[in-house]
């Protein structure tokens, strides 16, 4: 009964991440942090960027609540960017945004986005793009706050 497009958006990998999200739980230590809210649905995220001594991303830590897409997206993002440099993360955010806003025209680059490329199926559902972008927008904002 459920359409194949919808099956694709709610594929196993996405549901798994939404149920057992990676990177969930904020840390007490000081980090660049951003709080983002989707006022239409009340979905919220607080996301921290923790860096290693060499400036690369040591970990993403986040807390929030929202739909399966927003939770899975934050989890996939946390997995993706661990160990990257700040410009590498920004590039991933740009590529992800472009694909998500393409209404299904642009397939996300798996080379660059890894598992997070599965979220490309969300781009057909214009009303849900904000859900998928929430963590990435929070990360972009947190990166801007880095010295």
């Amino acid at each position, binding site marked *: 009964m*459920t359409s194949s497009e919808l099956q694709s958006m709610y594929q196993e990998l996405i549901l798994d991440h939404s149920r057992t999200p990676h990177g969930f739980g904020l840390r007490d230590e000081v980090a660049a942090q951003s709080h983002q809210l989707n006022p239409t649905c009340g979905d919220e995220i607080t996301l921290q960027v923790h860096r290693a001594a060499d400036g690369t991303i040591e970990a993403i830590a986040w807390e929030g609540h929202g739909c*399966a897409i927003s939770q899975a997206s934050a989890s996939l993002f946390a997995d993706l960017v661990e160990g990257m440099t700040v410009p590498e993360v920004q590039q991933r955010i740009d590529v992800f945004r472009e694909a998500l806003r393409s209404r299904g025209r642009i397939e996300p680059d798996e080379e660059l986005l890894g598992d997070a490329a599965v979220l490309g199926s969300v781009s057909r559902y214009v009303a849900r793009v904000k859900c998928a972008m929430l963590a990435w927008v929070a990360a972009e904002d947190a990166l801007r706050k880095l010295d």
Partner: protein
Amino acid sequence: MSSPTTADSPTDADILRIRADFPLLQTEVNGHPLVYLDSGATAQRPRQVLDAERGFLETLNSAVHRGAHTLAAEATEVFEDARATVARFIGADDDELVWTSNATEALNLIAYSISNASLGRGGAASERLRIGPGDEIVTTEMEHHANLIPWQELAARTGATLRIIPLDDDGALRLDEAPITERTRLVAVTHVSNVLGVINPVADVIAAARAVGALVVLDACQSAPHLPLDVRALDVDFAVLSGHKMLGPTGVGALYGRRALLEAMPPFLTGGSMITTVTTTEAEYLPPPQRFEAGTQRVSQAIALAAAVDYLGEVGMERIAAHEAALGRRLVDGLSAIDGVRVLGAGIDLPRVGLASIDIPGIHAHDVGQLLDDRGIAVRVGHHCAQPLHRRLGITASTRASTYLYSTTDEVDAFLDGVVATIEFFGARA
């Protein structure tokens, strides 16, 4: 269909005839016939309403209350006839109905007029409207943001205190804890909750307000479309309406105000069309309702709204209420029977309209809405502009189904099936 019918309820054949008047209801969505269960957000419009608006624009469109040419005179007449039609629909006199852009503007009109009065505007006549430190405004934890934030702001501007009628664990108003006292100057309450669908015992709230001499503002956005409404019988001072929730266009709403109060109130928006004499330093204002209708009015929308209430009147509000009460019961009973579904306010022992909201722990409302949309079922997901109510119930979002006169029991059943399928979809993949 096998709707439980009372003497008043329209038959299934009646509903099918009504549906034929609504072009949009013939639409398909995602390969399925549209099941439109979002009328609480905005109702669909019958051909008669669309034709009335188009007919005016094609034959009479011109500026009202100005100009001496034939079209302008006739347009003014139908515009004022529309006012009379909508006023009578809610039991008011013609000059007690003010056109606004929407119910939100109507509520802000009241709040800003009171704060203007509190600044001394309106002279001696408006003295009884003045509020300040020590005075209290009362609203409830259940309200749509439109009937909460204007009062927060009014309190902040005047130094008055905003007090809240709390809710019990089911979401019902705790009238035993209503902070209505000698200090209360205004009580604002919703007639029907836009989240719970319950018809509030507003007579009790109104009586409590009357006993202390407070003004009463009734948010009738979710009642006027679905129930017979008589503002005089209810004995409220103000009531607000939303046109697009009652088969009318967007961009038009209305404020009912008791005549003596409207006459005492200073204007909110000022400018053209609401004055008698203007000098470079001051102006004198027209009596109500024109005093509150500054600038070019939403003429074709008002005329279409009048056509909408004519349509509702022809079907009969008693019959519409009976039909929707049956749909509401079917919704609540059906949802309550599904494992894993929490029906918000299910424990409240009050009559309901055809509206119910649910929380499915473990499945976010957005995901529920997406699965339903895949089956052509349109519902509202989110906080429905009622964050305090959701917070009180311990959630941030819910899924709301809301019916109207054109809704069928089959549609309610399609929604119930969709909810079961949604739980299976996410559950089976757990």
